[in-house]
């Protein structure tokens, strides 16, 4: 099972580090990371493996959202299936 973590906001030092630390703490393995600049906003997409996650996905989502708020970033965690079902036939 995989999930997608997206981070949007102003580029600041240590975004990747903070997000990856939270993932590691919860047994979530980072599979792939893409960064891009989207209309002068920093945008990062992280594909993570949640097979061995040690907490409910909603808890991880809350933790990341809170960190996002502290850093002035929007962080969303969504199940991979939603993107697959929406954009693939």
């Amino acid at each position, binding site marked *: 099972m995989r999930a997608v973590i997206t981070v949007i906001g102003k580029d600041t030092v240590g975004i990747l580090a903070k997000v990856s630390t939270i993932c590691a703490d919860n047994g979530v393995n980072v599979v792939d990371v893409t960064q891009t600049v989207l209309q002068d906003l920093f945008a990062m*997409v992280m594909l993570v493996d949640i097979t061995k996650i040690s907490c409910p996905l909603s808890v991880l989502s809350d933790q990341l959202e809170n960190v996002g708020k502290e850093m002035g970033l929007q962080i*969303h965690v*969504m199940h991979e299936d939603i993107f697959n079902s929406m*954009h693939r036939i």
Partner: protein
Amino acid sequence: MLNVTEIFETIKMIQEENLDIRTITMGISLLDCIDSDIDLACEKVYKKITTKAKDLVRVGEEIEREYGIPIIHKRISVTPIAIVSAACKGDPVQFALTLERAAQTCGVNFIGGYSALVQKGFSAGDRELIESIPRALAQTEHVCASVNVGSTKAGINLDAVAMMGRIVKEASELTADRSCIGSAKLVVFCNAPEDNPFMAGAFHGVGEPDVIINVGVSGPGVVRSAVAKYPDATITEIADVIKKTAFKVTRMGQLVGVEASKRLGVPFGIVDLSLAPTPAVGDSVAHILEEIGLECCGTHGTTATLAMLNDAVKKGGVMASSKVGGLSGAFIPVSEDAGMIAAAEQGVLTLEKLEAMTAVCSVGLDMIIVPGDISASTIAAIIADEAAIGMVNSKTTAVRLIPAIGKKVGDTLEFGGLLGYGPVMPISYKSAEKFIGRGGQIPAPMQSLKN
């Protein structure tokens, strides 16, 4: 591999364009709760609902958190209560109070099915139930009622239409101190669908399985913003853009429905391919029509634009879902749609135009606020007109009028929440009392003879 642009497109749809699952509705059959003792019947109803739907809200919230998709409402629909109450003597309102108690225990937003199906005549219990609707709605908060007065196969039961004119007004009068909310929870149908997840008209048809999960999607904001990207496209191209967007929106509904059904251990029913607006800015069906090229919704060209929109939504959605049902199409509830409210306030969107629009979209005259001094026979006549459109066109039509007690044309009635607010709209003051008073049955049209 996932594509970054697609990921951000999805997130933008949810964060900025109000894409959401409007409702997960659990349909529950109450046929096995029928008993000649009303207290026993009510106890069985309470037990069955609170057993089957005990995890509905929790599972809905779990899916919401895990998938990151807002699921606005969790609802329950039940077998039309007139069928259950037919076997017992006593005040049917007792069933409404039981449904209310069950809804509160389960934590759902609405429970629908305080209903009667009388398109061809009244059977035991139907009249008593219909007469009790105003009291039932006044004494409960979450219960919704509906009555089917016509169908393409049966014609229109004019006696029931006349009765509903009176009942709608009474429902308003009994809740006059609460923005006439009673009539906002009451729908009069022609060709009512048995698997509709949307309120106030949801009920669980007798042909349905014991328990089922139906899903209603939303997404007018997503469609409007997709259309906005093509300012110079032809209408053919616009139809295509809407189809593609509807596909994506519906896929999400399908995913949520299948997941909810798996987690609840209940079969998955249908996705209702709907464009359901809310009063929030950017969540309006009227604004889609205006984006396509109308200065204001309700002006000439509205019916044609809406017909195209409604058709494209269905075409896009139908491939995205394994099973489609319910009302499926664009909704045009006046008080629940910021663009419709504005158009009605300007006097551009009128009752007559709305009636024409209902011939080409999914439901009917929905959430329309009329003067409080409207006569019961005029309400009945409006219902009859709308039912005729449904009957002849083999489609569902519905009427949800709110007589604003003590208010006149130009005043505003405010419900708050998803029900929104709206101006009191003018009606024709010429009477149809003689026609309504004739009673009897409008015979089924030629369209009914398909065999």
